[in-house]
């Protein structure tokens, strides 16, 4: 197997609040490979956005990070901001969710590009800057005549394409896309997704695509990681995960997708847990239809399945770690109606 471009090992990002630390990312591991896309799926509040920012070191004050994010032989966690800044852009790029507000309203598109190019490659002269910017924009379908316009003169979809062009003009090896199409309509979404697909092919970029939309993942991602309450509960090739989900949460998620053939609404009862005090053992056990006794007591062990997926679930053993009686179904009180979100 080829060397991973980015390796994340046991990453933890906790925020300090008056109520106690919020464990937004609670021990997450995965790899990114050149030319491949990893989809990171989860409900709102599961910590996926924090994870994306955590990799880049773009967290607010009061966040503590721990673990390893290995890029180019170095651990990015704990690196001084100055070093991180040099990496942001030319090595690791980021595309954000809300394109409407991501461009400085007082600066022309031209100025945005010259700023980012001159910061990282100060030896470029104006003509080269212009050439590279226009190339990047052309790749996104933005004509050169609009180069000197202001952000507010573009639609949401176009602004997102400009953001992608800005991220790509430096040819980063890794791109983190944090819900890039959530704020856009379906047609534009399709365009953006095809652009991102081209990324893999043409530039060999490793893409981390963060989304809550399983459809996008099925379509655009080679591998998928399912996140719940700060942990990755399942990870593997998209094809395998969708066909034979190993984790009950994944399975329930897939069942709740609405499609043209849906006749009744399926949903997972309950709500995602409070991350200041996540449930003991497996975080999903209060809502899991297959929960066993051991699930409430012990953290599940990561397991490699025969299909190649990695799951964190006691249903897959290892049996010798489960105490006697642990495999009995979990007794729980009825989830009160008032507790549902």
């Amino acid at each position: 197997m080829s060397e991973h471009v980015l390796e994340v090992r046991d990453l933890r990002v906790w925020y300090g609040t008056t109520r106690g630390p919020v464990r937004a990312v609670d021990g997450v591991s995965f790899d990114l490979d050149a030319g491949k896309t990893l989809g990171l799926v989860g409900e709102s509040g599961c910590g996926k956005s924090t994870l994306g920012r955590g990799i880049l070191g773009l967290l607010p004050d009061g966040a503590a990070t721990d673990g390893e994010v290995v890029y180019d032989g170095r651990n990015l966690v704990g690196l001084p901001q100055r070093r991180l800044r040099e990496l942001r852009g030319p090595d690791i790029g980021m595309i954000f969710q809300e394109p409407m507000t991501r461009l400085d309203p007082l600066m022309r598109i031209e100025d945005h590009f010259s700023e980012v190019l001159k910061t990282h490659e100060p030896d470029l002269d104006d003509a080269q800057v212009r050439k590279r910017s226009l190339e990047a924009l052309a790749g996104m379908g933005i004509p050169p005549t609009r180069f000197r316009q202001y952000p507010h003169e573009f639609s949401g979809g176009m602004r997102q394409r400009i953001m992608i062009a800005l991220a790509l003009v430096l040819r980063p090896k890794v791109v983190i896309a944090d819900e890039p199409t959530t704020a856009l309509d379906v047609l534009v979404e399709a365009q953006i997704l095809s652009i991102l697909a081209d990324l893999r092919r043409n530039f060999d970029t490793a893409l981390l695509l963060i989304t809550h939309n399983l459809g996008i993942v099925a379509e655009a991602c080679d591998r998928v990681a399912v996140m719940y309450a700060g942990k990755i509960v399942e990870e593997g090739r998209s094809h395998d995960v969708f066909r034979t989900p190993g984790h009950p949460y994944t399975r329930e998620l897939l069942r709740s997708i609405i499609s043209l053939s849906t006749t009744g609404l399926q949903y997972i009862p309950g709500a995602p847990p409070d991350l200041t005090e996540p449930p003991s053992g497996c975080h999903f056990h209060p809502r899991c239809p297959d929960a066993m006794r051991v699930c409430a007591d012990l953290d599940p062990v990561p397991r490699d399945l025969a299909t190649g997926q990695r799951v964190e679930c006691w249903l897959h053993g290892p049996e010798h770690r489960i105490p006697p009686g642990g495999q009995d179904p979990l007794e729980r009180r009825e989830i009160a109606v008032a507790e549902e979100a």
Partner: protein
Amino acid sequence: MKQSASLRRYIITRLLLAIPMLWILLTIVFLLMRVAPGDPITAALGGRVPEEELQRRRHEAGYDRPLIVQYVEYLKDVATLNFGTTLVDNRPLTEVIVQNGAATLELTFFAMIVAMVSGVGIGLLAGRFRDTPIDLGGRLFGIILYAAPVFFLGFLAQLTFGKWLGWLPTSGRASPIVTYELQTHTNLFVVDSIIERNWSALRDVLLHLIMPAMVLGLVIGGVFIRLVRVNLLQTMKGDYVEAARARGVTEKRVVYKHAFKNALVPVITVMGLEFAVLLSGAVLTEQTFNWPGIGSELVRYLNNRDYVAVQGIIVFTGIVVVIVSLMIDILNAWVDPRIRY
């Protein structure tokens, strides 16, 4: 080019909107002046001038005609910039406006410079270094400046710099000799002394300007401190700021080019709003420092019940306010490309 066309359209639309506002102001002034019992002539000169003379003057001025006719005459006069003549000392009001208006203009101009420099400067510092002693000191300074009436600051200034330290003169625009000697071209003493190359006169005039302009300017500037600080705090959290950081733009540039610039945009609008406050403050400053501006004339004529003069001065002030707010809006639109109709 496309952009200047829309700017031009904005200017024209704005101009058209200014007219109804001006009309409303003029009408309000007209009605206010007629609210007082009796007519202006009698009020001002009653008892000082024989009865037939009063009658004659009233007829001449048109106060015995129906209100509607008076109103139309009044609007016509304003349109032709005919402000009339004062009752008590027979000065054409245009003379009052030019001479005393120039004095007020000089004062307010320099006060505005002081306000901008001090207000914006301290506001930016306070926002940049949030929650440090600099921030606290800046904010406290701002609040105290707002809370201190301009005449109180003037009193303290006169006490300290005039009496105790003896550095600065405490009244008037210039010493009597200079006032007598200086040729009037524009009635702006600073400009006139430069035209004349009369450097000792310039020095004298500037010395007289320092206290009133500083006092008025600081008081106005206090408002900007708060405004700029809050704006800066908001822009620093802005989405485009985060996106710029994600592209590896240096922190310095992020703060100065993106956050600061965007934070200052609303300042222009507030400048326009503060203009009215500036005029109010000018009246008080003129009284405190014996500055022969249009504000002191207003007070003097009001005390003498010279309604014609008062009306003329107020109408003139109204026109100036509308014009200035129009200019500020246009300046705002020029700076912020999002503002167009």
